[in-house]
């Protein structure tokens, strides 16, 4: 369809060009004839009929397409290079086209024996008839050549465009096929499948790269979901079992009201802990899905840190831990204040747990500064620190190192911090504070 439109269009343009060209040639020939007539006319005025005839004969003897003919008032040919001119051409001044005999030594049915002339004829004041013109068979041949060239051009263009079109379509279809192949493989379960990227670096590669990045993200989310369900099974079922046992025990015969009451109170505590874990899980899921980004606003992070430090300062002091802050004066930072606050709380609560077993002067330092294009918040303690081999693991959901198992907590604290960091396009790192741990939250200032 598209090719047909293209072909019609190409033929149209080329045809128009050829037609215009032939018109132009005719106009040019008529102009040449006019100027020749002009010259001959001057010759005639200067030198009279004789001069004219001489000049005309000179022109006529020159090889070329020129046609010249002079007849006296009786119609008798005087000079020229054609044998005869039809009588009505001689009698009617103006532009004419006629067939003539070239008078060469050619066989009569040779097409070259006959010529076609485009002429102007007019009558001189003395009664002489003058005919000047051009053999237009030559011009016609020229036009035909032009038309033929155009025709070939059209044919070539059509042929080439069909070939190129078919080749392009085929390569495009082939690449679309690879995409749909990959999609099919992924649908049938192999999530790690990726669309091949060529070295051509064209639009298709851009598309493939983006689709691959999307697949990567989806796989990550699915992985996260799977981890959560696995962990929920373990970390929620355990306390639920404990809860059930406790209630069952309280319902046994022979328990005193006091014992039942105590059992109920523990049940509520356990429930609250479960609710907290559940809330934390939901929050991580929501943050990872990126949904609360609408609540971004410019926040003075130094204020947030001061608030949290002050909130936890009495608790820390009760455990003999000092909390100090090192805050650079910085412009407001666009973030979700609640979530940054929550992340800081988690970090500080962790730090308090860890700083408790510092050898001397347990202390926590919260610092804020900018490094390059990143806003850096660090919470450092001087406790036992986190062994290198555990550093990556503690960021995962529900991972609790042995030493913290006895402390309250869900094992979700750092996962939430990591999720909050990701929401702000940042990262969380666990560094060595020598002694102790230094958790670094870095978030790009432009996001």
């Amino acid at each position, binding site marked *: 369809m598209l090719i047909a439109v293209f072909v019609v269009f190409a033929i149209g343009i080329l045809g128009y060009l050829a037609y215009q060209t032939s018109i132009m040639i005719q106009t040019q020939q008529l102009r040449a004839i006019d100027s020749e007539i002009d010259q001959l006319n001057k010759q005639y005025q200067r030198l009279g009929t004789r001069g004219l005839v001489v000049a005309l004969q000179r022109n006529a003897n020159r090889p070329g397409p020129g046609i010249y003919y002079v007849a006296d008032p009786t119609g008798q040919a005087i000079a020229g290079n054609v044998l005869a001119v039809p009588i009505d051409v001689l009698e009617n001044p103006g532009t004419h086209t006629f067939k003539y005999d070239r008078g060469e030594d050619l066989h009569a049915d040779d097409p070259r024996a006959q010529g076609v002339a485009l002429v102007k004829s007019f009558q001189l004041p003395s009664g002489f008839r003058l005919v000047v013109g051009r053999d237009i068979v030559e011009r016609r041949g020229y036009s035909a050549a032009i038309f033929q060239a155009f025709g070939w051009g059209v044919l070539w263009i059509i042929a080439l465009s069909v070939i190129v079109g078919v080749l392009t379509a085929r390569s495009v279809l082939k690449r679309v096929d690879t995409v749909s192949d990959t999609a099919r493989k992924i649908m049938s379960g192999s999530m790690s499948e990726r669309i091949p990227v060529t070295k051509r670096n064209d639009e298709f590669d851009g598309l493939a790269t983006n689709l691959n990045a999307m697949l990567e993200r989806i796989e990550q989310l699915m992985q996260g979901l799977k981890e959560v369900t696995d962990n929920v099974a373990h970390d929620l079922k355990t306390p639920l079992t404990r809860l059930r046992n406790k209630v069952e025990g309280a319902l046994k015969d022979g328990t005193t009201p006091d014992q039942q009451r105590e059992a109920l109170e523990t049940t509520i505590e356990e429930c609250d802990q479960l609710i*907290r874990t559940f809330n934390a899980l*939901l929050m991580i899921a929501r943050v990872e899905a990126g949904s609360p980004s609408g609540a971004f606003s410019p926040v003075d992070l130094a204020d947030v840190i001061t*608030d949290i430090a002050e909130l936890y300062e*009495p608790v820390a002091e009760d455990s003999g831990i000092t909390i100090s802050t090192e805050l650079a004066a910085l412009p407001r930072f666009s973030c979700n204040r*609640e979530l940054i606050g929550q992340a800081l*709380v988690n970090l500080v609560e962790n730090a308090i747990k860890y700083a408790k077993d510092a050898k001397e002067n347990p202390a926590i330092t919260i610092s804020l500064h900018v490094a390059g294009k990143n806003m850096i918040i660090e919470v450092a303690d001087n406790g036992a620190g986190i062994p290198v081999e555990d550093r990556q693991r503690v960021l995962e959901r529900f991972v609790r190192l042995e030493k913290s198992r006895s402390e309250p907590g869900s094992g979700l604290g750092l996962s939430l911090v990591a999720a909050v960091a990701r929401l702000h396009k940042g990262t969380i790192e666990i560094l060595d504070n020598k002694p102790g741990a230094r958790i670094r939250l870095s978030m790009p200032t432009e996001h």
Partner: protein
Amino acid sequence: MFFPSVEGSLVGMKILLIEDDREAANYLIQALDEAGHVTHHAADGETGYAMASSMDYDILIVDRMLPRRDGLSIIESLRAENDETPALILSALGEVDDRVTGLRAGGDDYLTKPYAFSELLARIEVLARRSAPAEASTAYQVGGLTLDRLSRNVERDGEKITLQPREFRLLEYLMKHSGQVVTRTMLLENVWDYHFDPQTNVIDVHMSRLRTKIDKGRPSVLLHTIRGAGYMIRA
């Protein structure tokens, strides 16, 4: 059934509960009754809206997800009709954004399910009192304890007490709601402006410091811990 009975709390409030879960509603109605309040119940959004706009209530407790009409649109419509009855939104959604949309719709407070009844009771009592006029006082007094909000002066029996700025705000909030229970989360929300549930006893430690400053060595105790609920300041 046992509910924390609280002396000095508001009694006889007329409450409209719009909640579609029958069991949760029955539990709440009974518990509110034991706390001395009268509760009407609507089980869907349309009925709830009709009741709220045709009768006078001291407080509305509105579940967010309701059959026939959602909780937020009920509150929005009431506010559009200049009905300023305080409304507490109950929701199973508890994210920061949900809270913001809830409050923006005209809700006065937001409580995430599951909640402790003591938390709900403390919040609706504070809400109902908030809507009562004559509260823009510049000074509070509870027994021999006075707090001047302008000069930031705090005295107990004529003796000046020096407080940290945050301790001042804590005491100010408690005294503004003297005779009412304020929960730990209410304190965290109103004094620190954070809406999370701290895992450790951060608020308790702040309160025990405040208590040392205002009650230590005094013949009578003003700052009371209400078991299972929170704190209350009263003479």
